[in-house]
């Protein structure tokens, strides 16, 4: 009896979880199925929204007449889309490279060395990390203006390269390397640079990768920084391009959304394990 009761409870719990999971997946499903809808079908389903009138909107689970027309139109007839796509790449990848150059040594230094004001400096890093973008926006703008790099890709890359978040993530990984291992390396005659390069980076690679994946997701979806620092349209990333597509080309918007989420999704699947570990470690409190 008791077994049956717990069995029912378990099934109920699974059922509720499935419903919640479906609700979570639903927007993604709508985007993917919507990208295969023809203009006519899309307009008939969303007439009240497109015309800004009252009425019922319906979104079928699967398109009645699936078509690749929007894909063809976007991929073959919209060179603008590729400009913004590569703009996103131009801004994200150098930012990540910058983070590798800056954040990895910084995190190693915080984790493995003892120096004056270390704690204060690290606290400053943490404060900067928890500060919302809106707080530092004006000061960042003024600095970029003084450096004369506003309205260029550098205005996005430079602040991102010096982001404090990856330092925090990597610090946790580097910190977890046993001191005895480092000492052993020192006894064997390894210098500080060799220890960092041959022990620190290989052991901390999981942390480095997880930090990079997390930052990729953040930078790929960044909207406020490009909106504030980029005036020239030809420098805009994907995030600013999507809202600019007119309602009569809503099908294209959905296709663009699918393409935009693809690298993020694939990268997530690729580095899921590192990501989980990164999140896990950032949640650890020693």
């Amino acid at each position: 009896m008791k077994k049956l009761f717990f069995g029912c409870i378990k099934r109920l719990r699974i059922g509720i979880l499935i419903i919640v999971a479906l609700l979570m997946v639903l927007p993604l499903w709508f985007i993917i199925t919507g990208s295969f809808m023809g203009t006519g079908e899309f307009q008939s389903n969303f007439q009240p929204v497109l015309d800004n009138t009252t009425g019922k909107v319906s979104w079928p689970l699967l398109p009645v007449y699936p078509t690749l027309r929007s894909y063809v139109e976007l991929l073959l007839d919209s060179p603008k889309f590729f400009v913004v796509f590569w703009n996103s790449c131009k801004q994200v990848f150098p930012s990540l490279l910058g983070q590798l150059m800056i954040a990895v040594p910084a995190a190693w230094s915080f984790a493995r060395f003892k120096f004056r004001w270390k704690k204060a400096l690290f606290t400053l890093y943490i404060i900067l990390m928890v500060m919302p973008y809106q707080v530092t926006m004006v000061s960042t703008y003024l600095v970029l203006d003084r450096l004369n790099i506003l309205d260029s890709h550098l205005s996005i890359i430079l602040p991102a390269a010096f982001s404090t978040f990856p330092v925090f993530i990597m610090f946790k990984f580097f910190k977890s390397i046993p001191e005895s291992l480092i000492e052993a390396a020192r006894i064997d005659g390894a210098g500080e640079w060799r220890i960092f390069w041959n022990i620190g980076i290989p052991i901390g690679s999981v942390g480095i990768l997880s930090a990079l994946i997390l930052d990729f997701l953040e930078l790929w979806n960044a909207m406020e920084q490009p909106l504030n620092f980029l005036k020239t349209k030809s420098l805009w990333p994907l995030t600013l391009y999507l809202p600019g597509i007119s309602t009569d080309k809503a099908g294209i918007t959905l296709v663009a959304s699918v393409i935009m989420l693809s690298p993020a999704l694939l990268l997530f699947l690729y580095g899921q394990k590192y990501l989980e570990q990164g999140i896990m470690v950032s949640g650890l409190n020693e």
Partner: protein
Amino acid sequence: MIHRLRELLHSEYGKVLSGNKKVKKTSLSRVAGKILMIFFVIMLLFTILSRAIESITVARVEVDNPRRDILTHTLMGTGQIAMAEEEAMNILPDYHIDKVYVSAGEAVSTKTILYQYRVEDLQNKYNSINNEIKKIHNQIEIAVDQFASPASLLSLQQAKDNLSVARAKLSEVQADYEGFLQENKKQPLGEKNAEFNIDLEGKLEAVKAAKEAVRIAEQAVETSNLQYNISKQGDTDKIKSINKSNKITELTIQGYRLDLREKEKELKNVNTLLNTSGKVTSPFKGIISHISLVEGKTTMGDELIKIGVGYYVLKGEFVSKQAVNVEIGSKVKITIAGGPEDKISTKVSKLRINEKGSPELVAVLPSGKYRMGEGAQFKIMTQSERYDQCIPIQALHESGKNEYYVLVTREHEDILGKILIATRVKVDIIGKSDSMVAVKEGALSQKDDVITDSSKYINDGDKVRIS
């Protein structure tokens, strides 16, 4: 609970560190990694492909800038070769003939003197025409003065004149007062006596009086302005009649000016005759077939000299609308049917209305072998005045009745960078030839790229690229 969670996280992380130093990638992550690479490659390929497609689909246009130019009008037509047997010379009326040098049957060339006017007579004529010209000038001046203005407007004008006089007077006395002060500044205080004070007072009074005069004049202007506005409302009929009378005066002046032009032309002719001592040469080469001039008599205007010429001419009809700036003396290129193109070059010698009532031109053909009635094509190219903004005619589009526009390329900042957009600009035509159009200044600038040709149909707002 938190302690348990922490332990769990530690153990999980420990497993990862100890068990998999090189994290073993799952098959899903391997596939995702590969797809990610392929995704970027595909995006690169589509980037190239979309750019290539765009370069094919965007209209390629040819452009030209508006420039200062002369419009060349071409009048083309066909005609027939005919024999001109006799040419007549008109004799000016009311001139005394001093001597006649030729008689009927005599051969003449273009240098042969035909007759001579009496020089004294010509001189008198010259003086009399000169006097008449002066008279017409006076008449024009009087007529100009007759242009009427409403009385209220006149008084307003008067008031305004008074005000400007008063203001001039004020600035004069003020300058005098300031000058007086400057002059006496240098003088020591002790020397400034009663006379100085009296003078200063006088100057100040003058300034005050001038200021008062300006104030009164300003008031007068205001009053006159008010009166003018009232009278304008009340005396609309009166204003109408004034306008009518002004129109009549204007027409009279136009008439005088026409007379003036005629007289000036006459004076020029007399002057030319005076320069040749009254001698008139033959305009044609041929034989005098008729002469009705009598020595010592004053011409009546019906006298005639006829010269038998016997040369060939081309007579061709044309559409008067197409004959822009065609006049006697315009160069004509003639192609005889079956002959080489534009071989014969001559000038228009006559423009007249033929017996069918159509405009016809006559051009004397140079000596050569011609056949009567032979067909020929003629081409006359004339030039207009210089216009500031001329564009090729193919750039012009018609949007309605007498409404025209051109498409110019304008640079726009776009996601793709700087792109060119075809933009519609309305233009007013002030001259037109077969190949060029002169447009009114203002709508276009010299730097504008006006689209003259495109690889496909384009409209306002279309993206274009210059080929």
